[in-house]
């Protein structure tokens, strides 16, 4: 849809004003523009605001009068370009696959050539003159329209509504007017305004070169040419037409920009950042914990809380799983710990530290880079496509550990070997797109482990992979944990996967941790919280060694972060909800050694 932005309105209003000048100026100033006065090439004066030309004619009047011819020629050239281009584009499109292929290639080549050169060819054939110039510019701009037409035809013809309309027996002209035109009108309008600006400058350019309008007729380009000749005696003579050409071009550009503006939906946002203040502290972590997270919240600029006062810890060498549906805040929690939150969201915490490293303050980059390793969800998007694997793998070692190029490379090769990638020497010279998805994720793990981190954060590391590769990646993580004693935070939406890998599990729902339990309990289905039970019920038994089907879901959907109910966020979906659940949020309550649950019904005999 067309959005009536200020730029679009200003552009259209301005163009209308220019058109009005074109209409009226010859009547109002026609005489002044032809009147020879004795004073040739005079500078700016009260009588002649832009001075006079070589024959003593008023430059301002001539500039205004020239508007009509300039606009008419521009409109004619744009029309020729449009009609010719659309004809060519349509012909190429309907002419069958062979011709289409070559035709499109040819159009492509034509578009990539400067229109000036095409215009010179046409001008050379027809000789100098206004008609030749209009034709030349029209022809030179037609490939742009041809290509737009062809690509629009390609995109529209394949769409469902066209086929449906045909099936329903809608007559072809109705298909065109009701269905096709609205879809192609907008890009066509954009190109028309862009082409108008382009043909204006091109036509004026030809006239400026003396190849367009011939004296005694004159347009802006011709005036600029004479203005340039007189530039030492009356500099203002060039200014009039220069401003006119630029202004009209800018106005048409405004219209084009305004019409095309629908495509940039980026809205204003605040700053990202950390503030270690205020939040309510949660419970105490045990002594010797490696990662301690206390009252961590993540919120949008408007104050909507995506993660709401989460507290947990990870012991050295422990694998803690964080499980929940998408939107539960589990990945944001992980990214907040890694200090990699996206722009615009803010994190606050009463405490957040990794060993002796305070993660709420200005932590040293080198320590962050080496002590926290991150394995991202999508390995194909998380490697830089433009850089070789070796450079990306060794970056942290070289930058933060001061390791030399050769040694870093050697260690990268070893790390790749350790994650069972064949021919690691070759792989380090490859670009990411040359590896398979499974290899990329293993390389990602190698990259995360290479600096010897104290904590490895794996954010849904298997989601983007197929089932057999998933198993390998899990095995690899387990191996690293056993061999290096690296502690891990493992984020997943799959409670089954979490059950196979982790020591302890945190279940998140709507930005909060609703239950914490040892994995042994999870495996045998001994969960306290109704949400965890629902998750388990939706998952095939973990001890049955069969392939898991697609995750069946818990009925209902979690509430949006901005619309969470006042009480327990799970209440609308909870099978055992109590009256109090709608009003009071349940606080986490210990339910045994290393267990806790946030639920009013836990402990209540059913």
């Amino acid at each position, binding site marked *: 849809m067309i959005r009536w932005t200020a730029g679009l309105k200003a552009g259209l209003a301005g163009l209308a004003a220019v058109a009005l000048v074109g209409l009226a100026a010859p009547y109002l100033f026609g005489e002044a523009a032809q009147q020879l006065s004795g004073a040739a090439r005079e500078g700016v004066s009260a009588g002649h605001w832009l001075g006079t030309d070589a024959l003593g004619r008023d430059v301002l009047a001539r500039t205004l009068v020239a508007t009509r011819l300039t606009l008419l020629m521009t409109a004619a050239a744009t029309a020729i370009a449009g009609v010719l281009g659309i004809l060519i584009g349509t012909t190429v499109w309907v002419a069958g696959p062979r011709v289409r292929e070559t035709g499109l290639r040819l159009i492509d*080549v034509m*578009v*990539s*050539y*400067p*229109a*000036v*050169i095409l215009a*010179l060819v046409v*001008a*050379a*054939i*027809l000789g*100098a003159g206004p008609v030749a110039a209009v034709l030349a510019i029209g022809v030179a*701009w037609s490939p742009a329209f041809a*290509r*737009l037409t062809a690509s629009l035809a390609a995109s529209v013809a394949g769409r469902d509504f066209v086929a449906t309309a045909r099936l329903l027996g809608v007559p072809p002209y109705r298909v065109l007017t009701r269905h096709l035109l609205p879809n192609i009108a907008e890009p066509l309008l954009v*190109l028309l305004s862009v082409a108008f*600006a*382009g043909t204006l*400058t*091109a036509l004026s*350019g030809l006239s*400026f*070169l*003396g*190849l367009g309008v011939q004296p005694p007729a004159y347009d802006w380009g011709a005036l*600029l040419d004479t203005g340039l000749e007189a*530039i030492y005696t009356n*500099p203002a003579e*060039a*200014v009039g037409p*220069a401003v006119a*050409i630029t202004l009209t*071009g800018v106005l*048409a550009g405004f219209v*084009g920009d305004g019409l095309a503006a629908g495509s940039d939906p980026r809205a204003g*946002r605040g*700053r990202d950042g950390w503030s270690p203040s205020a939040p309510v502290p949660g419970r105490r972590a045990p002594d010797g914990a490696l990662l301690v997270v206390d009252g961590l919240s993540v919120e949008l600029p408007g104050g909507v809380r995506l993660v709401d006062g989460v507290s947990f810890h990870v012991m050295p060498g422990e694998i803690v799983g964080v499980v929940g549906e998408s939107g539960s805040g589990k990945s944001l929690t992980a990214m907040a710990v890694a200090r*990699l939150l996206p722009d615009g969201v803010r994190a606050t915490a009463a405490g957040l530290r990794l060993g002796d490293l305070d993660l709420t303050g200005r932590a040293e980059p080198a320590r*962050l*880079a080496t002590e*926290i390793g991150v394995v*991202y969800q999508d390995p*194909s*998007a*998380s490697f*830089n*496509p*433009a850089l070789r694997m070796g450079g*990306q793998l060794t970056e942290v070692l070289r*930058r933060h550990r001061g390791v030399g190029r050769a040694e870093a490379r050697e260690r990268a090769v070893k790390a790749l070997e350790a994650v069972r990638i064949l*021919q690691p020497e070759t792989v380090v010279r490859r*670009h990411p797109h*040359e*590896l*398979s998805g499974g*290899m990329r994720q293993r390389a990602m793990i190698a990259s995360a482990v290479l600096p010897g981190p104290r904590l490895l954060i794996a954010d849904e590391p298997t989601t983007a992979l197929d089932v*057999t590769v998933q198993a*390998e990646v899990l095995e690899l993580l387990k191996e690293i944990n056993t061999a290096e004693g690296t502690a891990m935070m493992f984020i997943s939406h799959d409670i089954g996967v979490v059950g196979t890998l982790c020591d302890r599990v945190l279940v998140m729902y709507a930005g909060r941790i609703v239950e914490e339990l040892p994995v042994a309990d999870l495996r045998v289905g001994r969960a306290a919280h109704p949400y965890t039970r629902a998750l388990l019920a939706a998952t095939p038994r973990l001890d049955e060694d069969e392939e898991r089907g697609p995750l069946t879901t818990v009925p209902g959907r979690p509430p949006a972060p901005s619309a969470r109910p006042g009480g327990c966020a799970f209440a609308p979906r909870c099978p055992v909800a109590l009256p109090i659940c709608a009003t009071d949020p349940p606080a986490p309550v210990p339910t045994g050694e290393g267990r806790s649950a946030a639920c009013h019904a836990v402990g209540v005999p059913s």
Partner: protein
Amino acid sequence: MRTEDHRPVDAQSHRPENPAADTPGTPVTDTSENPATGAPEGTAVRGGGHPWAGFLLRRLGGLLAVLVTLVVVTFLIVQLIPGDPARALAGPDATPQQIEQLRHEIGLDRPLPEQFASYAGGLLGGDLGVSFQTREPVADVIAARLPFTAELALLAVVVALAVAVPLGMAVAVATRGGRRPRLDAAFTFVTGLGGAAPEYVLGTLLVLVFAIGLGVLPASGAATLSALVLPVTAIALPGACVLARVVRREAAVVLEQDYMRTARGRRLPAPALYARHALPNLLTGTLTLGGLTLSALLGGTVIVESVFAWPGMGTRVVEAILARDYPVIQGTVLVLGLLAALINMIVDVLLGLLDPRTLAGRSHA
């Protein structure tokens, strides 16, 4: 004139896949281990010929096609002159004998294929004909003029890129996530204005200010190094404005990519983050979309030469068109076309160096 700066409206069709996306259908040897044994199988990387070999072959093929097209088109310039070309060429005052003599001289009385064969054959031997006007061999005319035009156009390309890339990137970084809306608005306004000013208008204004007003730079000629400043600025600036917008848009997209988060995760200092990780990726998109702007700079050069009385191909071809000096027109148009092809090819090679995935696809000349 930068008529086609804006043409990339629909140039989206040129774009390779989203830089972050996987190339679909790339035959990567599957290396998944056999789940039963855990033993890895297959080779680590994809085999096949060197990617550059195919790319260069296709590219040279494309160049050849362009060359042939240019030869045909320049040949047709004379044939397509409305009415009787010989009469048109001889001028209104020519006697019938003169017209016939001219017709014979140019070979217009021979059958079309024969004419073409002699034209193309001449080109192969480096014979571009002789100027009607000055009786100079066209090859000499071009040899004298080409260096000046190539100098302007290539310098303008370099300047446009050198201005647009850092500027667009800095603005993208400064305004990411909707910060500094005023800078955003100012950037959009200034680049909109600069992008809309035609090169020859800008050139005229530059002469007004710097040559006449301040008197610090020469207004015309190509005698000194300082004479380059104004024409190169005039040609490069509008293109730089258009490109800077493209760079900014591309950079905004790149900064949101997952791999930029990975790079942030490595806690690199800002220069490494932007120069090493963002730049190559945004250049791919920029060149794909902005490549047309670069070859359009050549068009700007042709016209701007007239502003500065620059002794290049542009001023010469205009003279030739006004004088209906067809051999010179044909020769200069041919060479200008090749120059445009050269710029396009440089863009493609740069793209290939920056992002090897494009080697497989793009092939238009």
